[in-house]
């Protein structure tokens, strides 16, 4: 398929691996921000081919949605008048007592939508029902979710509302750089987040923390070239924002999308699952669209929750521990019976490791006990 296959060419990948090996003189640590990138890296074994320590970042929207937000979704979805709609990967995220799929099995009207415009259509077609959309995600889904709210308003759909749990990438990167145990020396920024937002927000970050940031795509050649650009900067003592993903990302992002996002949403403090509240790290509805807030409409804004004690999702999301360090990984916690969100999502680090067949150190017999991370310097 055009724009996919040519970026998966094994010969060109080998050249990039060889070039990275030739350039690197020290065991640099580079974080890929986005869970989609994590999956390509782990599935292709890219992290095991290069003498660079890849730290897996927090960029999985399903994983960082706080438990209490899942509980609020469950409370709303259980109401008889509600049609609860969501992206498919939120359905199996465990709340305190159940997940949306279990609720659906018990008779709740929970539906998966591919696009939030399908939720708007459902509201139009079912004026006697309350249609709620679970508006989660990073900056990538914000244009779509904002458009759904805008359409709801323009069509005068009083039975449509959204449960908003939107998060932003740059404040999370700042929180990682500010944390005392931080070992990240360069970032591969999430290409599709930047396709929407551009990269001007990253320029002050690169300068203030003297950290290279490379806007990077999602195919194997993209990721390898992104790593190469990052380690070249590290070796040369530069700390700039560079764009590897030039075919999809422009410096100013997508101005049409930004205009709609800024009309519907404003920046707010947000809780991140496993991390806690990060100031100005999310989006909430602006006053103009406050009537579409499902948390207020259904009175669930005060619901709180507590995590399963065995789950180390917070440390996984911060990149300080690996799934294979977790005692529950592969035993108590599997994709079929997940304890924490990173094992659920198609973009979660734990699911990426499990799907690639990576064994837990505590299960590995002769191999255990493991180190903090799976790979270090040049071999």
């Amino acid at each position, binding site marked *: *398929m*055009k*724009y*996919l296959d*040519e*970026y998966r060419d094994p*010969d*060109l990948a*080998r*050249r*990039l*691996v*060889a*070039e990275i*090996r*030739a350039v690197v003189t020290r065991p640099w640590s580079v974080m890929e921000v*986005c*869970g*989609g990138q994590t999956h390509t890296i782990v599935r292709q074994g890219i992290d095991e*081919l290069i003498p660079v320590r890849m730290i897996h970042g927090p*960029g*999985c*929207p*399903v994983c960082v949605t706080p438990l209490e937000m899942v509980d609020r979704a469950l409370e709303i979805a259980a109401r008889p008048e509600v049609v609860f709609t969501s*992206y498919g*990967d939120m359905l199996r995220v465990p709340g305190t007592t159940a997940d949306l799929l279990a609720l659906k099995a018990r008779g709740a009207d929970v539906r998966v939508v*591919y*696009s*939030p*415009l*399908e939720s708007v259509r459902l509201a139009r077609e079912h004026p006697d029902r309350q249609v709620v959309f679970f508006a*989660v*995600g*990073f900056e*990538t*889904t914000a*244009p*779509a979710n904002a*458009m759904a709210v805008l*359409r709801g308003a*323009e069509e005068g759909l009083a039975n449509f509302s959204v449960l908003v749990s939107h998060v932003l990438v740059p404040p999370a990167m700042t929180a990682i750089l500010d944390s005392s145990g931080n070992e990240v020396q360069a970032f591969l920024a*999430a290409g*599709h*987040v930047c*396709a*929407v937002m551009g990269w001007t927000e990253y320029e002050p970050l690169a300068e203030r923390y003297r950290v290279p940031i490379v806007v990077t795509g*999602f195919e194997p*050649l993209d990721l390898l*070239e992104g790593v190469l650009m990052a380690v070249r900067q590290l070796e040369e003592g530069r700390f700039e924002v560079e764009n*590897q993903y*030039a*075919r*999809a*990302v422009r410096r100013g992002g*997508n101005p*049409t*999308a930004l205009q*709609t996002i800024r009309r519907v949403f404003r920046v707010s403090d947000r809780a991140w699952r496993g991390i806690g509240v990060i100031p100005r790290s999310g989006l909430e509805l602006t006053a103009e669209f406050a009537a579409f807030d499902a948390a207020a409409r259904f009175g669930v804004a005060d619901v709180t929750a507590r995590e399963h004690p065995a789950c180390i999702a917070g440390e996984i999301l911060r990149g300080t521990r690996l799934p294979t360090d977790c005692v529950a990984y592969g035993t108590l916690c599997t994709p079929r019976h997940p304890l924490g969100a990173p094992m659920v999502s*198609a*973009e979660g680090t734990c699911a990426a490791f499990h799907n690639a067949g990576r064994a837990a150190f505590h299960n590995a017999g002769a191999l255990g006990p493991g180190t903090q991370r799976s790979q270090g310097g040049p071999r």
Partner: protein
Amino acid sequence: MCLGIPGRIVELAEGPPPMGVVDFDGVRRQVCLAYTPEARPGDYVIVHVGFAISRVDEEEAVRTLAVIRAIPGGMDEVSG
């Protein structure tokens, strides 16, 4: 939900919001084109949750591959 993929616009449809049919290697879907007003049939767009968020720049796509192809080496360096 962040996994965006490129597809080719086959036809445009009236809004609101502006929509179109996008072909993903044989699979066709309705996609909202409100955020790529410059895109025309034949153009490739990156699609997320039913919305095109970026038009693929063909010149840049070719340039990225040319840069990588200019790197010497291959099997021998890597197998060692």
